[in-house]
């Protein structure tokens, strides 16, 4: 708190109009794109599952897709939980996406560049 604030009576929160502008620009950039073409994400998800299923038996419910729409870059993360190996070694758990988010073999990541 600066000494001037003593006279103003309270410390001011940072102005929020800048955040409003930035958030709007990002969300509208994406909404304008999806307005022209149809939304491809559901199809992408379905086809990716089909491809993975060709190589390993997976439970379609153990597939996690998340999207982060950014200003310059959007990230599409797809996590596929693979079943435990046939002969489980003692103590080995099923391949779970690790907490630190290091790209494990069980995780496919795709980046989509926003125009």
């Amino acid at each position, binding site marked *: 708190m600066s000494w001037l604030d003593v006279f103003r009576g309270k410390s001011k929160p940072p102005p*929020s109009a800048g955040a*409003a*502008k930035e958030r709007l620009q990002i969300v509208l950039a994406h*909404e304008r794109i999806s*307005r022209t073409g149809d939304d491809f994400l559901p199809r992408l998800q379905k086809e990716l599952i089909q491809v993975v299923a060709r190589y390993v038996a997976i439970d379609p419910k153990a597939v996690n897709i998340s999207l982060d729409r950014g200003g310059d870059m959007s990230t599409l993360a797809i996590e596929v939980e693979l079943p435990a190996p046939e002969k489980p070694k003692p103590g080995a758990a099923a391949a779970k996406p690790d907490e630190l988010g290091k790209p494990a073999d069980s995780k496919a990541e795709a980046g989509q560049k926003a125009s």
Partner: protein
Amino acid sequence: MAQVIVVTSGKGGVGKTTSSAAFATGLAQSGKKTVVIDFDVGLRNLDLIMGVERRVVFDIVNVISGEARLNQALIRDKRVDTLSILPASQTRDKDALTKEGVAQIIDELSQEFDYIVCDSPAGIEKGALLALYFADQAIVVTNPEVSSVRDSDRILGVLQSKSRRAEEKKDPVKEHLLVTRYAPERVEKGEMLKLEDIREILAIPLLGVIPESESVLKASNTGSPVILDDVSNAGQAYKDAVARFLGEDRPHRFIEPEKRGFLSRLFGGRAA
């Protein structure tokens, strides 16, 4: 042939009806034969804002269903003789409006009037789609607030794809941005989106900026469109916007904070 103007926004409560009433009255004041249509079936309000609620006999749905002739439903304004109002139905459901029915009404009104102003309901459902379908020009009413700006962008997309002009591949609907409830003091403090930011994001020509003003409530209390209040800043801003619409070049006013004296700053006086 009349020009059809839709006043639209997507988001509710941003000032469409206030602006439709002011704009239609302003056009009529400059000698243009103008009719303003309330498309908000089930939530009629334009009649109150225009101060003609006690004179409503028939409404747009009665005309479409053949229960009344168009001339019986039109209410002639007593203040401006080139102005008429076509009220919405208060009782019927939204399905009572049909594209064919509205087309016929617009067609008939086109013979007699220069401007047909359509006050759209909120949303992007049937009522809003019908209100914008026949438009030649659109006034997109936007508040300096994220959800309003986003919905305006959305409604611009609808105008560009679902209007009759879009469907028939004619020249696109001419778009105008009308920013309402603008509070320069809050913009200066960084609490509210700047006019320049809204213009940059929506990227359509700016028709006017209507300041947040107590005179709007006063006008609706008395059923007199705020543009008839010559001393209010909102009334003057609407007058400017109408003049710009008719081709006049006028500078934008009321977009900077009012300069206030030391005493009024100290005691927190409020702007009218």
